């Protein structure tokens, strides 16, 4: 036990003083040469990190705003497209029915005109036919009249005609 007390549990005042001297000298040396620059660099980095984080937060908010705006624009565009498509459909329907109606009308017109043309052609043909028939009939009649007219009859007709002329005068 004495050996331990002498060896392990001995509090040597000289060693204690050496410890204090060594430690204080070490603190003084490292103060200026090491700790000050290291702590400064840590501080400046912490400051920089704080700034960076703030910047990142700002950038995130900005990005979010832009995203929201884009979303809004996209939504608007979607609405717009839907509206345009619906309008287009309605227009197309309208145009279709219009075209059909017009086509129908045109077809009707064409038929009408064709009918009219046919009628005129028929009428003209009939007129010509009538004229021909009249001519032929006149021819035949004149031939018959020439063959059957007696001089007295002719005289009677001429007289009659002359009397008419007289009556008019």
């Amino acid at each position: 036990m004495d050996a331990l007390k002498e060896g392990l549990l001995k509090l040597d005042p000289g060693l204690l003083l050496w410890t204090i001297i060594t430690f204080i000298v070490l603190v003084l040396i490292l103060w200026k040469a090491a700790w000050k620059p290291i702590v400064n660099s840590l501080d400046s980095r912490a400051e920089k990190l704080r700034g960076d984080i703030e910047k990142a937060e700002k950038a995130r908010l900005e990005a979010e705003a832009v995203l929201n705006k884009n979303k809004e624009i996209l939504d608007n565009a979607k609405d717009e497209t839907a509206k345009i498509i619906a309008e287009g459909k309605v227009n197309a329907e309208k145009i279709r029915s219009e075209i059909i109606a017009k086509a129908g009308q045109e077809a009707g017109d064409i038929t009408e005109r064709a009918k009219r043309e046919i009628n005129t052609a028929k009428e003209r043909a009939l007129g010509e036919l009538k004229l021909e028939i009249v001519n032929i009939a006149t021819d035949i009649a004149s031939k018959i009249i020439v063959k059957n007219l007696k001089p007295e009859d002719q005289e009677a007709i001429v007289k009659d005609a002359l009397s008419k002329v007289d009556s008019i005068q």
Partner: protein
Amino acid sequence: MFRLLQIINFLPASAEGGHGEEESVGAMVVHHLGDNLPHFWPISYINEHLLNEKLFGIFDMRITSLVLMMWLVAVLLIVIFVPVARALKKETVSRSKWVNMWEALVSYVHDDIVAPNFDHHYAKKAMPYFCTLFFFILLSNLMGLIPGLRTSTGNLAVTAGLALLTLLGIIGVGIIKQGPLSYFIGLVPHGVPAALYVLMLPIEIVSLFIKPFSLTIRLFANMTGGHVVVIIFLYLVMMFQSYWVGIGSVAGALMIYFLELLVAFIQAYIFTSLSAMFIGSSLHAH
């Protein structure tokens, strides 16, 4: 601690019969952990011719091996941290893993030891002391794990010296920041009735001195304890003179060795952290 040392002293009696080993385990422990005077030049010359007289009749200033160990640690700290500081001054963000490692440890000391106990303004001023304290104790603790070197923090005088500086810090900071009179009055918490005050003041003054005392004993006992266990484990081999015991005791010693690695960090942290807490709390009256 004492119980352990008593057990160690009993061991040789049973061991001596088995073999011719003269050295008792107690002597072995003292030989490995105690302080001694180096026998090489120029230290021996300086010791014999320049420092052979006691300073003020009390302080035996001869350079012992533990003093040399402290100087080695001090030189190591300077060699490590001055280039690190220079590298960090040059570029705030270093690529070097070496620089980053030490820087991480410094920022650990700052964030976990100093910052919780000091306001931002004081933290910067307190950093040099606590950084030096932490790394000095850490490296001293780790020194003992290298064969041939010794743990200076495994000696009562060294830990007492460090704790004495902390005590001076507690009282000094208290007197400077609160004023001498209000500091000693402020030792007793506010709102204590006058009758209790008479009782409380001595208790608080005693507790003021118990703080560094507990720091001293804690660090010393932890660093010594691990080494003693390692030595006992290895001594078992000599005691039993058997290969099988050798395997077991080397494995045991190795485990304690790894535990020591952990304890070296933990004790450096505890000593520094408690010092920071004590000194930080004397900044303001409470």
